[in-house]
């Protein structure tokens, strides 16, 4: 936008050149646009189509069956377990990540000695693959070992009947959430820290001079100013948790009684192990819709506020 307006002010001579450049500009970006159109939108349309046909064997069968695959999907116990797991996972994961991230960011914002070291410790898991995280946490949360041993050493865990973590059908998915928090909470901390640092010291100083306590400062100035960041974090974490796949795949698999199963894993298995392509496509579309409900308003919001500014 800025470019357009500025260019219009330039001399007549440049105008032809400018128009030519505009053609080049479009040509430069066209391949990417085309790629996105095909690989994102056209493919989604294709998946949607597959989800409406009867391709539930190795051999493609494009007989149209309407919403039958969806109808069946929602009746399958495994998928019901997946939905409930995803919900539990999302709530716990987002909540803990936000809490931990906010806490750590605020602590680190206190002119801490060795801040960089702490920050790096909190954030290095972000650089690691979920597969690695899964391998490590699988052993840490194995009932007969890992954290249960520590718990037993300090007397809060009875090793004869230890917490089952991811093997406990009731809390299985929450154990996976612990590993996910380990990996992702540093991200939220970084976001909050960036937000805190962007709050001008003058504002806080003025409040302090007015006699505000640190807690009032936090509640009435810092938190409201961090609200947009919280919103971003919820969206980002939410879409990570809805899409989670690698971590459960490497850490637990679907689990006994599907205690740690998630839709993405079900989709992968039913498509590539069970040859239920249409069912897999239906799961994928459900996932996409849920993610879109989260993401599209966010994108529109961002886009609108950008135009306004």
């Amino acid at each position, binding site marked *: 936008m800025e470019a357009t307006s500025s260019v219009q002010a330039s001399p007549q001579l440049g105008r032809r050149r400018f128009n030519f*450049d505009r053609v080049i*500009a479009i040509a430069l970006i066209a391949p990417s646009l085309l790629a*996105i159109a095909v690989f994102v939108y056209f493919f989604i349309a294709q998946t949607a189509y597959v989800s409406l046909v009867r391709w539930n064997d190795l051999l493609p069968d494009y007989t149209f069956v309407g919403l039958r695959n969806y109808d069946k999907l929602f009746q399958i116990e495994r998928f019901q377990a997946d939905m409930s797991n995803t919900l539990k996972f999302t709530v716990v994961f987002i909540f803990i990540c936000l809490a931990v991230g906010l806490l750590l960011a605020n602590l680190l914002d206190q002119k*801490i000695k060795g801040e960089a070291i702490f920050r790096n410790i909190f954030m290095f898991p972000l650089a690691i693959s979920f597969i690695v995280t899964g391998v490590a946490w699988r052993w840490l949360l194995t009932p007969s070992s890992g954290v249960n041993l520590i718990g037993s050493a300090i007397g809060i865990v009875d090793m004869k009947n230890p917490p089952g973590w991811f093997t406990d059908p009731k809390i299985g998915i929450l154990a996976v959430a612990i590993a996910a928090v380990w990996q992702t909470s540093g991200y939220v901390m970084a976001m909050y820290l960036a937000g805190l640092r962007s709050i001008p010291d003058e504002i806080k100083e003025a409040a302090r001079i007015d006699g505000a306590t640190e807690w009032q400062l936090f509640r009435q100035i810092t938190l409201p100013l961090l609200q947009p960041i919280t919103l971003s974090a919820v969206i980002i974490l939410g879409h990570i948790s809805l899409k989670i796949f690698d971590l459960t795949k490497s850490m637990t698999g679907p689990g006994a009684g599907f205690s740690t199963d998630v839709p*993405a894993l079900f989709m992968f298995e039913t498509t590539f192990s069970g040859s239920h392509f249409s069912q897999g496509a239906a799961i994928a579309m459900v996932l996409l819709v849920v993610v879109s409900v989260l993401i599209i308003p966010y994108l529109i919001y961002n886009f609108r506020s950008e135009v306004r500014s």
Partner: protein
Amino acid sequence: MSVVPYEQTRRRRITPGRVVTYAVLVGFSIFYLIPVYVLVVTSLKSFREVSLDRMWNLPQSFSLDSFRDAWFGNEETSVSGLASSFWNSIVLTVPAALISAAVGSINGYVLTKWKFRGADVVFPLILFGMFIPYQSILIPLVQLMQNLHLYGSLWGLIFVHVIYGIPITTLIFRNYYAGVPTELIEAGRIDGAGIIGIYRYILFPISLPGFIVVLIWQFTSVWNEFLFAVVLVNTPSSQPITVALNNLAGSFSVAWNVQMAGALLAALPTLVVYIFLGRYFLRGLLAGSVKG
């Protein structure tokens, strides 16, 4: 600047609050470092020493056997080593990151300095591509790669990563170039430079930080990626390290000291990048969240 004396007086005091702050920070540090401790300690143990009951114990004798097995493999216990897949991951990651950065830079340039009609609509549409669950494009993708004869090859995977990297790389460069004053571009135009010339002589030379951010971001995410890799490239001879590690760890016959050593090896390159270039990594990370 009245802040300075205030801070100085604060800093000198050791209040209980300060102590609690540090205690909490140290406590969380332990939480984040626990898996590292277990990974390192276990992978330094010999097979005989590995036991679930003694997970936390330091190794009694220092042994690199598990690293050797995880890297080279072990014929006897039929462990296949990660060495070749480590190399595959490098062959995959480096070109994917480079091409992605080039594409992202061009897109970011056009979207900030040569906005066309509808650019503001197109951009969110591009961005949406980075949020979709990739399951929703997986079936057609496999079919297409099959038809292109790119299925099962690292080239195909590079191609896929470049395509699905377009949203994030474009976003990062767009944010970066948005910070470049339009006056610079205008000056270039007045000097008679065209779209390419302005990019070449004005923007590109100051793009290094943007390139570093994108390169690191793409390097890390492609290195760590699993779903595309496991679906598109699954022959053991060409599979990337995440897939190989998952297979190594999924095999219950493989002793877990070897699994842990394998996990460390797989994490090493991105960790090294993080340790040395963490600043830039962070920028890429925040670009994905803070508004586009």
